[in-house]
């Protein structure tokens, strides 16, 4: 029988709620919590041999160290597969599920699987590399998710070909693959036009990716206690450009310490933006990254605090591949450092 290791948080591990969120990783034999239903749904083709449980805060706060410990616990079991969650829309739990799945896949080269709500940051971050069954927002949907997880787990274990997202229930990984159709392209197009003319629903074959607008994040409720970060796409970097950020549409970004500074001195910071006359920004880098103003506002108590690093890149205001990737990394870094809002400045 194929061996599966299952990962859940302190809550589903029946250890406790938020008060137990600092729980260090521990391992129990056999299935625990949702693992029981999952085990049953695997109908004897595979079994959960052990369950790793870790507190959400512990994992979030102890990053690499927690991951190392958990990876070692999983590896000991010599599993054929690793499953985490379902994490529904729980942010920290979802990130843990995604992070561990991704790491197990890379390190142990075994199939991995989790289940998350599509807008869970863990799903946003890892859907490309990890099969993530689409879960509803809350555990009320547990009974719908478990059979889908079991079904995909069996396929992954047997090496069977994995179908399309609509068939298997996973969140699309973002790969467009060629697919032969019964109708030719012209017939599909004319049918689509007739439906559009009649006002009937139709499905475009190629959604316009740049324009998948994001719903505005909710407003900051408590500015006085908020930690706020500065980001710039205006190319203000330390002299010498230590991260070698390119002068237009950069493929890199930098994170720079400003904890000891009340403004950006011109002898320590410069502009590498190639798109405009840099002389004004070089004379006073605060013209692009308003550190001096932010410090005063911080002292006045208008905001809780200014995050002690700022993020810098050049251009790339669009949501194109590079920009999207590092914007995700920046967002991750902000979450890790409890940044609650950001001011992005561009030329």
């Amino acid at each position: 029988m194929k061996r599966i290791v299952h990962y859940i948080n302190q809550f589903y591990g029946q250890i406790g709620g938020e008060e137990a969120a600092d729980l260090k990783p521990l391992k129990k034999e056999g299935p625990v919590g949702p693992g029981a239903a999952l085990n049953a749904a695997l109908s004897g083709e595979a079994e959960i041999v052990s369950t790793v449980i870790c507190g959400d805060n512990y994992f979030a706060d102890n990053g690499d160290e927690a991951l190392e410990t958990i990876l070692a616990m999983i590896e000991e079991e010599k599993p054929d597969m690793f499953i985490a969650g379902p994490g529904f829309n729980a942010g920290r739990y979802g990130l843990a599920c995604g992070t561990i799945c991704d790491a197990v896949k890379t390190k142990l080269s075994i199939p991995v699987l989790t289940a998350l709500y599509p807008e869970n940051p863990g799903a946003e971050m890892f859907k490309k590399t990890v099969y993530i069954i689409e879960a509803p927002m809350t555990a009320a949907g547990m009974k719908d998710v478990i059979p889908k997880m079991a079904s995909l787990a069996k396929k992954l274990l047997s090496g069977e070909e994995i179908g399309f997202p609509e068939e298997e229930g996973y969140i699309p990984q973002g790969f467009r693959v060629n697919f032969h159709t019964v109708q030719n392209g012209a017939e599909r197009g004319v049918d689509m036009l007739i439906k559009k003319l009649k006002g009937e629903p139709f499905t475009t074959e190629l959604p316009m990716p740049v324009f998948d607008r994001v719903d505005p994040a909710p407003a900051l409720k408590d500015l006085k206690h908020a930690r706020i970060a500065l980001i710039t796409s205006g190319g203000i970097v330390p002299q010498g450009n230590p991260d070698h950020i390119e002068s237009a549409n950069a493929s890199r970004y930098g994170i720079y310490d400003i904890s000891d500074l009340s403004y950006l001195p011109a002898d320590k910071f410069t502009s590498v933006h190639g798109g405009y006359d840099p002389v004004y920004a070089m004379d006073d880098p605060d013209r692009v990254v308003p550190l001096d103003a932010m410090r005063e506002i911080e002292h006045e108590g208008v905001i809780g605090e200014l995050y002690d690093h700022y993020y810098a890149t050049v251009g790339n205001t669009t949501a194109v591949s590079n920009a999207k990737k590092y914007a995700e990394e920046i967002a991750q870094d902000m979450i890790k450092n409890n940044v609650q809002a950001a001011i992005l400045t561009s030329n």
Partner: protein
Amino acid sequence: MSIKYRCISNNPLFREKSFPGLEYHETDILSLFRLISSEVASGSKLLSHPLTGSIRPDITPYKTVLISCEKGEPDCTSVLLMEKAIRYTEDLYKLREVPLYERWGEAAKADFQMIDYSIIKQALEVSA
């Protein structure tokens, strides 16, 4: 006759022909596009589409782009079009470890130069 455009090119054939308004750069297409992107961000307008012709920027080594001499407020269409062209080119450069454009022999290079040149010449004939 006064020239109403700047011709930003990495195609040596334009240099050979002393093409009016030429600003020649010995570089690859992606770097050329980044340079044009900077010009456009500082207020030049694109006159020709950066991705002229049907030969992909990872296949031909040469592209030529016409931009305005005058600078004004940055033109949103031009700025976004350059960003899109750069993204498109970056993605195509990633297709192979060594992009195709680096691999051609002299005969193929000469043909690519001639096609790029023909496209810009025809563009100016049609759109004075």
